[in-house]
């Protein structure tokens, strides 16, 4: 199974509480099944974020190599005076813990420092690239969710039928194809063999004079292939989860009861099955955000899409500490926020989560 595909801790509630309960505030089931309040959950996410920041900060610094050697000495060796000046400029001469403190306090002021490579403000660079990654990830997550949910429910509804068998085959294959292979295949097919789509970039340059609508269409046009690759990469997991969940939901007594009541198929699907499938699905969508962030790095690289990958990979290569750290922290914030939103939504939708 892929990183995003693990069955979540909050799977379809097979556990049911006995006995009457009074209405109570929201709470959350943790990975170990414990229930905690929302504040606890937010706390967990903050601790996670701190852990990521810390790892990302210390890891490159305790490894061999330093950015000044990697970047500035690539062309000509630095003399010791220049080197000292630069080290002081980037606080590299300070003890590690002091650097860490300075970095944390910078983050708290939303100041992510300057790149070592060009001395540009990191925040500015990220601000230029992040929207493209968000666009790519957002589109892919939305489209794959919509298709995965609809296809999964339909396949399960006619279980064992022709549609189900075909979808299952296609999705199983898709599940086994990594994004970068998908992306490369799409590139070969629709850029090389049949040149339908642009091979690189997110928008055609020098189009300022054209109208907004044109620009929008142009961005969409550039988005098609990368988004398709990432969407297909995310689809298999979702489809399989939705299909299996729906099948187990369809076997539940309440579905038989709903049919016995003469509920029309449309409402059976939407009101009775849909909401019960939606809950575990939501969790997987949340977990997939982390997976999509990784996949999007690959896809962006293949299509030379100007997202975070184009910042992060060179930064890693060059040991550009501030830029690299900022990229990771931004991705972590993105993923954690998405998960937090999922958790909060989950608690709203599932009456079983509300307890003492």
């Amino acid at each position, binding site marked *: *199974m*892929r*990183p995003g595909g*693990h*069955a979540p*801790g909050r799977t379809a509630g097979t556990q049911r509480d006995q006995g009457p309960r009074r209405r109570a505030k929201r709470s959350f089931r*943790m*990975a*170990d*099944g414990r229930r905690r309040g929302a504040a606890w959950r937010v706390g*967990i996410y903050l*601790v*996670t974020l701190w*852990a990521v920041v810390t*790892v*990302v900060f210390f*890891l*490159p610094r305790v490894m061999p*190599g330093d950015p000044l050697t990697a970047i500035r000495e690539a062309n000509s060796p630095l003399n010791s005076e220049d080197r000292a000046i630069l080290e002081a400029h980037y606080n590299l001469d300070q003890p590690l813990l002091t650097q860490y403190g300075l970095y944390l306090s910078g983050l708290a002021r939303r100041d992510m420092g300057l790149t070592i490579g060009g001395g540009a403000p990191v925040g500015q660079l990220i601000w230029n690239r992040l929207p493209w990654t968000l666009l790519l990830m957002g589109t892919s997550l939305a489209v794959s969710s919509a298709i995965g949910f609809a296809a999964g429910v339909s396949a399960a509804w006619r*279980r*064992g039928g022709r549609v189900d068998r075909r979808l299952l085959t296609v999705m*199983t*294959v898709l599940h*086994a*194809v*990594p994004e*970068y*292979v998908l992306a*490369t295949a799409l590139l*070969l097919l629709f*850029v*090389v063999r049949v040149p339908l789509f642009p091979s690189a970039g997110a928008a055609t340059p020098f189009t300022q004079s054209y109208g907004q609508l044109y620009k929008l269409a142009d961005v969409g046009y550039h988005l098609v292939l990368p988004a398709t690759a990432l969407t297909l990469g995310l689809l298999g997991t979702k489809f399989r989860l939705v299909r299996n969940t729906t*099948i*187990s939901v*369809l*076997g*539940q*007594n309440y*579905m*038989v*009861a709903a*049919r*016995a009541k003469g509920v029309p198929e449309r409402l059976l699907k939407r009101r009775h099955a849909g909401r019960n499938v939606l809950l575990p699905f939501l969790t997987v969508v949340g977990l997939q955000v*982390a*997976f999509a*962030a*990784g996949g999007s*790095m*690959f896809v962006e*690289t293949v299509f030379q899409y100007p997202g975070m990958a184009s910042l992060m*990979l060179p930064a*890693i*290569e060059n040991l550009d500490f501030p830029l690299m750290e900022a*990229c*990771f922290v931004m*991705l*972590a914030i993105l*993923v*954690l926020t998405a*998960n937090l939103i999922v958790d909060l939504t989950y608690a709203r939708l599932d009456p079983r989560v509300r307890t003492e």
Partner: protein
Amino acid sequence: MTPLDDLSVAANSSTGTRTRSLGWVGLVIIATLVVLALLAPWIRRYRPETISWDFLQGPSWRHPLGTNRIGQDLASQMIEGARSSLLVAVLAGGGTVVIGASVGLIAGWRRGWVDLVVMRVVDVFLATPRWPLLILIGLYAGRDLLVVAAVIALLFWPGPARTLRSQVLSLRRRAHLKAAVGFGAGTVHMLRRHIVPEVGLILVAQFLSAMGRAIMLEAGLAFMGIGDPSRTSWGSIMRDAGDYSGLIYSNAYLWWMVPPMLAIIFTLLALTFVGMAVEQRINPRLARHHTGRA
């Protein structure tokens, strides 16, 4: 458990049979790869890194998959790639499952604060973008394939750990385990005689999926140019092909780019098939039609 009416006896046997035969297909593919990888030194006609003047040649008797831009035999490179993939699959997949299973077993068995701490760590891991982290750590820990495998194992153990833990917890609630504790069985006895046999197949399924993930990650890293530079991998073949700007102006991609792509896809598919067959053994219900309960 359930009365007659509720038995899901209306099984769709054809689905079950199909899954089983797909499982065998997967096993055959994997076995072929293993044989190729083990016998590589005797099968290949060129060392994969040997440069020759025969560059950018199409498939021929001398070079079944042609050659690349610097005249390396692509067939030999593909076999070498299989060796890399399988090595990382076994090491990283095994490492993931060993770490994950041990942690999961201990957390599920000891419960209490051990469990609490472990599951918090798992929560942290699951909410972290691990792919970029893998690139970062892999880059700094060294690009050696063994290091990559180790880093994969260190990053991806929480998945199996959580699965194992919930299995152990549910096993603990079963009467025969309670009974065994009741007549004084110790932890070692319990784990060996009762827990491990019960979760054996689940471990196999976890191992298969961890292997697939490791192959995918290793080839991905190599494709991004941050793999082990001393080794040929399916990912690095893809990267070399992609870096050649003339690729798209000829048919070279057919024997240069497509074979590693297909190799990755079929290996992962094979692992998926075997995994599906194992899952069906674990949970036969998935292969059956449901019958509603009332």
